[in-house]
């Protein structure tokens, strides 16, 4: 069982730019990602929204492998700010895990 922490979203959401909740889980981003990052962005964003911080922190490699190339974003039907959302996850990991 994963631990749910409802305040995790507040730690990640630094501004209105973080709009993971707009995601309708259609899967276009995963299908199109040149890095083949199946998890990013939709599943990870869902984990954030559900407050399953542990799942986010277990996927550091996927989060830092993202090229921020916006190929997913330009094809996303819900205009999710995918690259900025990924950067927000990095910001939290840098602070929480890497203590930077």
């Amino acid at each position: 069982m994963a631990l749910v922490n409802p305040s995790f979203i507040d730690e990640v959401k630094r501004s209105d730019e973080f709009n993971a909740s707009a995601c309708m889980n259609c899967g276009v981003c995963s299908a199109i990602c040149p890095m083949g990052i199946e998890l990013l962005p939709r599943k990870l964003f869902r984990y954030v929204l559900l407050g399953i911080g542990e799942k986010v922190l277990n996927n550091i490699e996927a989060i830092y492998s993202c090229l921020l190339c916006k190929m997913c974003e330009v094809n996303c039907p819900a205009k999710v700010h995918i690259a900025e959302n990924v950067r927000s996850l990095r910001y939290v990991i840098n602070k929480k895990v890497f203590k930077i």
Partner: protein
Amino acid sequence: MTLPTGDTIGILADNLKLRNSVLPISKENAIRWAKGLELPRGGETILYTGIMYQLIPYIAAMSKAQELIEDSWMANFVSVGRYVNKLINVSGFMAKPSESMQKSYNQILVNIALLLKEAGVNFGYLYEEELYSGALIYDLGVDDILKDHVHKVYNTFKKYKVKNVITVDPHTTNMLRSVYPAFIEGYDLYVKSYMEVLVERNLQPKNELTKEVVIHDSCVYARYENVLKEQRTLLNRAGVTVKEPADSGRFTLCCGGPAESLFPKKAIVNAKKRVDQIKNAANNGVTMCPICFVNLQKAANDEITIDDISNYLVQAYL
């Protein structure tokens, strides 16, 4: 070996904080390209290199020096350790870049300066006071360290009463045009890439180039900064036939370069995919970003030619 992500980011961020650059490069080498061009120091309009083209030969040298032992140039720094790196300037551990590579990357900057002069633009340069934009640290999400750095860069512009900044690469363009305003209240610089300036000035070719090239758009120019028309206009106007690879324009495929510092093996896989797409269109790929240039050139393995757009533009417009 996979690099420890946290340590790598920590070292890059410390370098920016302590030495104003993710990788230390001597001031002398950063400004060497401008020798003989007699550009004034500072001014209302400046050419800002962001030290991107100058840094690539150093990264390439590090990467080559370690090919047999590790999979990334960053491994050298990580093995030194973050604590030691804070105390000692690790530039002493950097491999010496190849003279010819330095020369060709410096030449790109010379090309750009000459093209701007030809277009009648009056511009200066900040020489050793020019700072790196912080692009990699932004990408890695270390915003607190970046915040201090962007103010340092901005203050240097203010010291010289700069109003217009002409950039040479997409990452620096994006930082100065779209990222800095979010960090600096009252940000008032006008930022344009040199290609935008050349088109705006309606620069006309002197020679016709009857060549065929495949254009590789940088994802940052194409999807962040909407710089898509200018590169095509400049090449078409010069008589060049511009071919498009399978994924192009707004839907361009990333060269993989942004993965280079943390996951170099992933970077090369992506670059190879892109080289295949270019190869299917024609034999000459043209780039407009130093990261795309080095990454695709490495992956092309001499099977096809990859060259910076400025090397074509000087043949036509000077």
